[in-house]
């Protein structure tokens, strides 16, 4: 005879099913014969994402039950049958269909009902509670004869329901009793922005509306009459005004019920009967009920632990939530209302991009108590870690909600989190559990998800999960790997040497001989760059085209709106009046925004891809050539006006700048290169902040190398003094070629120098003393590049097959209609997203 006990679970909703899954994953799964009742005709499904049923998801896709789950685990499920009586004295459950089952332990997971406000007329035809898949089918049916729909309730589920109505093509209204949407989770500011965003999506939102009755409509089926005298006509009404615990069965059975509803449970989730547990929305703990799944899952785990003889407690639940409502990011953490005495509030509001963020912190500014994020919830994972683990806030907590500026990093590194930190709140996975999975050999995000379930619920924790993974792998010494990418187990310098020694001329050849796979943007660009540095072939040649980043592919710089900027070369910053006029006329003709750059030339913004060849044809006709602003290559040689005009000038800095720019233009290099030449030590050209800087002195030219501005400015090092022009050019040839051969990808000369063993002295010994006996080779290589220079734009517009690529659509002459400009300070600029939508709507 079996000595198994019988465990009956009443209800197979999300929490009931989660309980079964947890039980079957535990050591005590063989201790029980498990029987469950499910009143609906299908087993548990994802009620949280119910509205996706209308966006095309099937009931099967919403299912939370793995195929064969009940059979495999020997669980008996009574579908479409409802438990109606619990006889606690005799420990039996009787169902609607007349089954009588004796139990040893009973778990109530009866969930909740949608609350239907007690309004006269609330049971009229096509007035439906929004709760189950059956409700959805009723809704679908009702929608067929409806034009207008209204949702009563502006909470989380109500807004989901509004999305469902929109998906059914109804004119949609949300009627909220209170003063704001999602009143539990949001403050006035956040709710206000959410309302605005929902309205932008075409849903009308009525606030502060108390429905007093529903009667026959004049135009529509119903008329909702509000206490303020206003009315709303609608054909279909959905109730989503909150939930009420389903405690009727428990009440009948004489279990203790909380004043505000719900079966009373203790910290072990035990009801007033020692053999009956209650979990999920039907349960009341500390006089609270929980309308989210995460607390329900926590209760389910507690009961499994109790049955196994453990001593786990349910300790309440984090009600934080993050979701996408009709495409709008919304998140709420802890107490967003600042109800704790003395709590302080930070807010950030960005009306342009539609973002609202609010932080509630403790009186001493140290602990995060709550947060609201609307429009951009990307900060949620970090903020919820601060909240859940009570981690000390940075001294300026507002940095957590202000937009990231430059390199001021305020992120919370995964290393700062304790092992107990909960990373995934859907499945209660701690950092400790993730780390032990990694220690157990799991090294990928996918593997971690399969192993720990973290990140497989709402997905909000995935970025954090990834950074924990990376951090742990790094600590475990997994990868201190200098391979440029997964396709080549070589450094950039190795690849350069391979190209040079084996005279390799294409990416395909290099990949076949020394790589694997088909490449990626890292190795393709790197190899494309090396081939261009060494062989200096046309970058859009068939073999090389796919190796170029979009900027190089279209020989222009892509801007944030997908248009390009165009920069013709002005050697040494010198330009004739005719040249300026031509640029002005071209910019005017094509409606371009013009700006003078830091490199002493003119940048023209806002060119569509199809306009680029036309613009360049005109620029070339006016005598200009490519400025290579798009390439990892020599950009500009800046100069002061020099001895020709300046009272203090020592030498002709402009003439030298023009000569140097013409010599090195087109040189492809690991990163961009900038030069400057100053005509005296007053240094007006700021040469000491450039990769190559030259200053005129009485005895000749002083050469500075490896300076740069940018994020981490570095002054150039004085490399040699009092040089004549010939020696100066020799040294520059050698330094640059040596840099091109030995630097890492995307490494400026400054970092290259700092990482070089021996530093400046070593570089001097190579370039000046020829310690490696390579100077002749270095010069030869540079001379070859100089001799093979071509203006890439000239080559391109002469070749019809190349010009063909410069159009937005291969099969249409239309332009990308999303490129829209507005005017500012007398010129165009890209419309921001709001303006774009507005202008598009006007055009339509």
């Amino acid at each position, binding site marked *: 005879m079996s000595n198994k006990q019988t465990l009956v679970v009443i209800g197979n909703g999300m929490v009931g099913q989660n309980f079964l899954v947890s039980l079957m994953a535990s050591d005590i799964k063989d201790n029980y014969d498990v029987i469950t009742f499910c009143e609906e005709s299908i087993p548990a499904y994802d009620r949280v994402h119910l509205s996706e049923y209308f966006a095309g998801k099937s009931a099967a896709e919403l299912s939370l039950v793995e195929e064969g789950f009940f059979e495999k685990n020997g669980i008996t499920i009574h579908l479409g049958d409802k438990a109606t009586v619990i006889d606690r004295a005799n420990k039996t459950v009787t169902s609607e269909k007349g089954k009588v089952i004796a139990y040893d332990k009973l778990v109530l997971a009866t969930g909740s009902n949608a609350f239907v406000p007690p309004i006269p007329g609330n049971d009229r035809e096509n007035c439906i509670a929004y709760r189950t898949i059956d409700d959805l089918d009723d809704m679908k049916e009702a929608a067929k004869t409806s034009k207008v729909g209204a949702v009563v309730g502006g909470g989380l589920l109500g807004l989901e329901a509004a999305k469902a109505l929109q998906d059914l093509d109804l004119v949609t209204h949300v009627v909220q009793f209170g003063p704001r949407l999602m009143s539990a989770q949001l403050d006035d500011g956040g709710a206000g922005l959410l309302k605005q965003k929902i309205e932008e999506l075409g849903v009308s939102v009525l606030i502060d509306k108390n429905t007093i009755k529903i009667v026959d409509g004049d135009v529509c089926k119903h008329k909702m009459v509000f206490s303020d005298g206003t009315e709303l006509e609608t054909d279909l009404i959905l109730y989503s005004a909150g939930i009420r615990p389903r405690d009727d069965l428990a009440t009948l059975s004489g279990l203790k019920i909380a004043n505000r509803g719900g079966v009373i449970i203790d910290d072990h989730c035990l009801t007033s009967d020692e053999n009956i547990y209650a979990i999920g929305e039907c349960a009341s703990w500390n006089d609270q009920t929980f309308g989210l799944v995460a607390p329900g899952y926590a209760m389910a785990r507690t009961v499994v632990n109790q049955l196994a003889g453990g001593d786990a407690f349910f300790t309440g639940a984090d009600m934080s939530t993050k979701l996408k409502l009709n495409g709008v990011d919304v998140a709420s953490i802890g107490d967003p209302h600042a109800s704790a005495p003395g709590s302080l509030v930070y807010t950030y509001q960005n009306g342009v991009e539609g973002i609202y963020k609010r932080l509630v912190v403790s009186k001493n500014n140290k602990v995060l108590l709550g947060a609201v994020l609307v429009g951009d919830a990307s900060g949620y994972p970090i903020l919820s870690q601060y909240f859940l683990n009570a981690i000390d806030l940075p001294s300026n907590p507002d940095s957590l909600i202000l937009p990231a500026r430059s390199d001021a990093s305020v992120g919370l590194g995964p290393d700062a989190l304790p092992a107990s930190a909960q990373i995934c709140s859907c499945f209660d996975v701690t950092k400790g559990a993730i780390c032990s999975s990694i220690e157990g050999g799991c090294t990928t995000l996918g593997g971690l998800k399969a192993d720990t379930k973290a990140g497989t619920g709402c997905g909000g924790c995935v970025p954090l999960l990834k950074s924990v993974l990376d951090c742990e792998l790094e600590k475990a010494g997994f990868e201190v790997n200098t391979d440029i990418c997964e396709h080549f187990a070589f450094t950039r310098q190795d690849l350069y040497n391979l190209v040079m020694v084996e005279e390799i001329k294409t990416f395909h050849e290099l990949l076949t001989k020394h790589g694997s796979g088909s490449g990626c943007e890292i190795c393709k660009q790197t190899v494309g760059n090396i081939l261009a540095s060494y062989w200096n072939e046309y970058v859009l040649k068939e073999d090389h085209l796919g190796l170029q980043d979009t900027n190089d592919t279209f020989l222009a710089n892509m801007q944030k709106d997908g248009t390009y900027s165009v920069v013709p070369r002005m050697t040494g910053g010198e330009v004739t009046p005719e040249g300026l006029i031509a640029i002005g006329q071209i910019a005017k003709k094509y409606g371009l925004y013009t700006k003078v750059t830091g490199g002493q030339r003119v940048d023209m913004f806002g060119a569509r891809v199809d306009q680029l060849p036309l613009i360049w044809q005109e620029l070339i006709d006016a005598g200009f050539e490519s400025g290579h602003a798009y390439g990892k290559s020599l950009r500009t040689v800046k100069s002061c006006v020099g001895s020709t005009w300046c009272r203090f000038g020592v030498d002709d800095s402009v003439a030298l700048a023009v000569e140097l720019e013409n010599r090195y233009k087109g040189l492809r290099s690991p990163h961009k290169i900038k030069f400057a030449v100053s005509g005296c030590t007053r240094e007006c050209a700021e040469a000491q902040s450039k990769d190559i800087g030259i200053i005129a002195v009485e005895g000749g030219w002083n050469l500075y190398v490896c300076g740069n501005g940018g994020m981490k400015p570095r002054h150039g090092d004085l490399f040699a003094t009092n040089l004549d022009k010939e020696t100066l050019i020799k040294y520059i040839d050698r330094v640059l070629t040596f840099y091109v051969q030995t630097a890492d990808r995307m490494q400026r000369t400054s970092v290259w120098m700092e990482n070089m063993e021996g530093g400046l002295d070593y570089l001097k010994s190579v370039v000046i003393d020829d310690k490696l006996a390579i100077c002749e080779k270095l010069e030869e290589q540079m001379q070859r590049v100089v001799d093979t220079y071509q203006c890439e734009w000239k080559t391109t517009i002469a070749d019809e097959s190349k010009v063909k690529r410069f159009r937005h659509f*291969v*099969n249409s002459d239309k332009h990308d209609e999303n490129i829209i400009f507005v005017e500012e300070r007398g010129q165009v600029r890209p419309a921001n997203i709001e303006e774009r939508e507005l202008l598009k709507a006007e055009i339509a």
Partner: protein
Amino acid sequence: MSKWIDVCSVDDLQKNSGICALVEGEQVAIFYMADNSIYAINNYDPFGKVHVLSRGMIGDIKGEPMVSSPLYKQHFNLKTGVCFEDETVSVASYGIRIEGDRVEVNLNGVAK
């Protein structure tokens, strides 16, 4: 319903690179890989919020074909449209085939 729409000639494709076609109002980015396989996904970059994916660089990540956004360099799987860096973000992927010397797109189809 599956409907194949003629888009362009095979000669219009750019080996190892992408092009963009207008198909029933949708911007479709078409990529022609080194091994002659061909993929179609929507041209909209959900991070940069502009239509530019066809101008990204292509290749593979662990054997899966991908395009890297030309703006902020996120990678999208060319078979599924799912972003490698953030699996909650994806773009639509479409059916595409070569019939004779013509390229055809099926907006309701799925990639091979």
